[in-house]
């Protein structure tokens, strides 16, 4: 499993765009990049997943450069309700034998 490195914490004002970068130098050819969001006293929730270039959904965008050694989660115009911990995962969920490992995550604090 590729190891990931992301900032431990970030602060942002409401209405700003937030970019959280994750480093994964040892990513394998068949690995996907997935981001989860976790609010206090809840389980993590899937946000977005990608393999290369850019992926966008109603919640976020995910930017992946050509070498795939890093990825950036972009949250447009954050609000107070986006205060949460964000986890970057690299791996392939397949066949039931793949262990899914989370890191410490990035604690995002949105300030009024």
């Amino acid at each position: 499993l590729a190891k990931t490195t992301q900032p431990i914490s970030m602060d942002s004002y409401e209405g700003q765009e937030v970019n959280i970068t994750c480093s994964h130098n040892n990513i394998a050819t068949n690995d996907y990049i997935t981001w989860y969001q976790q609010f206090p006293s809840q389980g993590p929730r899937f946000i977005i997943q990608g393999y290369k270039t850019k992926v966008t959904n109603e919640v976020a965008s995910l930017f992946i450069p050509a070498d795939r050694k890093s990825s950036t989660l972009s949250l447009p115009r954050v609000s107070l309700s986006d205060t949460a911990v964000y986890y970057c995962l690299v791996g392939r969920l397949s066949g039931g034998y793949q262990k899914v490992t989370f890191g410490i995550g990035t604690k995002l604090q949105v300030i009024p």
Partner: protein
Amino acid sequence: DVKVTQSSRYLVKRTGEKVFLECVQDMDHENMFWYRQDPGLGLRLIYFSYDVKMKEKGDIPEGYSVSREKKERFSLILESASTNQTSMYLCATTTGAITGELFFGEGSRLTVL
């Protein structure tokens, strides 16, 4: 929507007690996981199961066992609870597809006195 239900949100047990944490999912998923989450350590995988009666150790299996007698139910067992097992326990499930996302329960906060 996938629903993952954990039997207890909050439990308080005494050292040496046997503890059962149960997880039920309603989507016929093959794969189920148990994690524990502690401040500063993130989520750590305890055990996972890819089929009925099948299990694999995760990163921190010591002091835990699991049971999967039916596809929808995955139980975590603490044979003799200790204070260092005080934690938030999270159950998750996934289809096992290449891009399958994990679906988590709301967690069970266990305090061992």
